[in-house]
């Protein structure tokens, strides 16, 4: 009632201040009964959700006020996330490639020791007639011994033996169009069941070696990914730490008028969240761009090997995972910084 002071001034000083609890609205403004709230008061879920949404958007808005600085931080995060996710996608592609090769692996059928050479040849001839078989090569026991002697370096051991311990072998090349792992498996079973066959075995040695290499690669990417994830935590943490220092005044005032830690934490957590999401989006763009660039040359190379292999970029689920990982790392990084630094700021 500043506007009315001139009329009241004289009276206000002498009055012994009776406290009327219910003041009548005068001249347009209302000042309801005092005090009328119960404390502490919890917000309704709807207000709570609206508040979260508001902070979410506010913190995004705050970031867009300094687009250059925000973009820089997001770019650093983006690069850190792009490296492991790009490498993982590459490994996934290699895995697909190795799966398609698995079908082309030959099958070795080890024949019964007693089976005569002619019978073996005849069996080879019969198998050549199977529609799913492209080529069969017969390796007699003597040839097998010669090959073994040459490659293994155990010649002297063999010389000590009186008889040739090696069986004769049929090397079966399946037709390429029957490449599915299931097809290869059923062929394997039928070969195994042949009269005179001791053992049928997919020649997976190189596939296994490849798989072992892939495993090493995967582990390596995991290590790199963990380190870069840590880097993202630190980047976000440090950015938020600076942000907290810049908003020190605001934090003190908010604490003084009854803001809980959760309330004060919230905008910073959402800021971290947005950094993570922004970084993940940039990482996604980088990976997809890189794969788009590689796609043509890889297809050409595959063509030279008579393969229709196509490089696959990040799929939908992987993209979602990347986004989630980014958001989570941003949130966590900010949470670490906030946990460490918010306590230090108290009004004085």
């Amino acid at each position: 009632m500043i506007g009315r002071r001139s009329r009241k001034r004289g009276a206000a000083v002498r009055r012994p201040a009776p406290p009327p609890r219910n003041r009548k609205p005068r001249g347009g403004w209302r000042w309801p009964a005092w005090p009328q709230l119960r404390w502490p008061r919890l917000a309704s879920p709807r207000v709570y959700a609206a508040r979260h949404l508001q902070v979410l958007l506010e913190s995004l808005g705050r970031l867009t006020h300094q687009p250059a600085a925000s973009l820089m931080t997001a770019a650093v995060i983006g690069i850190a996330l792009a490296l492991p996710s790009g490498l993982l996608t590459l490994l996934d592609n290699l895995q697909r490639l190795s799966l398609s090769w698995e079908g082309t692996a030959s099958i070795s059928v080890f024949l019964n020791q007693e089976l005569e050479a002619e019978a073996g040849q005849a069996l080879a001839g019969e198998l050549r007639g199977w529609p799913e078989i492209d080529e069969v090569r017969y390796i007699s026991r003597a040839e097998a011994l010669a090959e073994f002697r040459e490659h293994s370096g155990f010649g002297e051991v063999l010389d000590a033996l009186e008889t040739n311990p090696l069986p004769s072998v049929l090397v079966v090349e399946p037709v390429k169009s029957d490449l599915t792992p299931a097809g290869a498996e059923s062929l394997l079973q039928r070969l195994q069941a042949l009269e005179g066959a001791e053992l049928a075995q997919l020649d997976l040695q190189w596939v296994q070696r490849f798989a072992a290499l892939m495993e090493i690669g995967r582990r390596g990417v995991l290590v790199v990914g963990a380190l870069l994830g840590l880097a993202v935590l630190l980047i976000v943490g440090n950015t938020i730490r600076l942000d907290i220092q810049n908003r020190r005044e605001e934090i003190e005032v908010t604490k003084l008028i009854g803001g809980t830690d959760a309330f004060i934490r919230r905008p910073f957590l959402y800021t971290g969240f947005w950094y993570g999401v922004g970084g993940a989006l940039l990482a996604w763009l980088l990976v997809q761009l890189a794969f788009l660039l590689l796609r043509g040359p890889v297809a050409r190379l595959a063509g030279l090997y008579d393969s229709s292999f196509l490089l696959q970029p990040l799929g939908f689920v992987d993209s979602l995972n990347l986004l989630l990982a980014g958001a989570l790392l941003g949130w966590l990084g900010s949470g670490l910084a906030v946990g460490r630094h918010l306590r230090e700021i108290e009004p004085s």
Partner: protein
Amino acid sequence: MIRFDNVSKRYPGGFDALRGLSLHVPAGQLTFLTGHSGAGKSTLLKLVSLIERPTSGNILIDGQNLNRVTRRQIPFVRRKVGIIFQNHQLLFDRTVFDNVALPLIIAGHDHREIGRRVRAALDKVGLLKHERAYPHPLSGGEQQRVGIARAVVNRPPLLLADEPTGNLDPELSREIMQLFEQFNQVGVTVLIATHDIDLISRMNHPILILKAGRLQAAGYARGAAP
């Protein structure tokens, strides 16, 4: 409303700002707190608002012992206290409206309720026309009143003010004091630390005088009726 029971406060440097202080601020009263510079007025207010903790003794607000208030509970106690301190003033990157709305947002009021209450508070301090302004261009007295609006907007039962008229001219000071009187008239307990003996001795409210961390005197100004 506020009870100090043999309260001492020693600051980390070893200085005793309060020495065995006992006093009582009754509910529903407007009470002035005065004393020489360094007497411990600000310290007393900081103890009530839990910015500082006492070295010994008990402080009760509304029957609640502040020594039993944990860190996590502090915000909820502070929501019952409207605080007008000079060094915790406005946030200059938001409008007057947003500054005053902050306590209500913290308390989780809904949008419409916030609008209503903020406007009522701004109207009360005579600043409704500035609701969309930023604090910076406002005069010192107007900024002070925005601070007051923020302190009262959630209608706390207790108001604390540390030198609210510190750098205002006598006319503005009187206006601000009248504002506090009006809040007091609707039932709010008000405690104001001030140097402005001139002003308060002409007002009819109890005065507490501190001296070197002790209560030197309590009563009404000689000129005022008891």
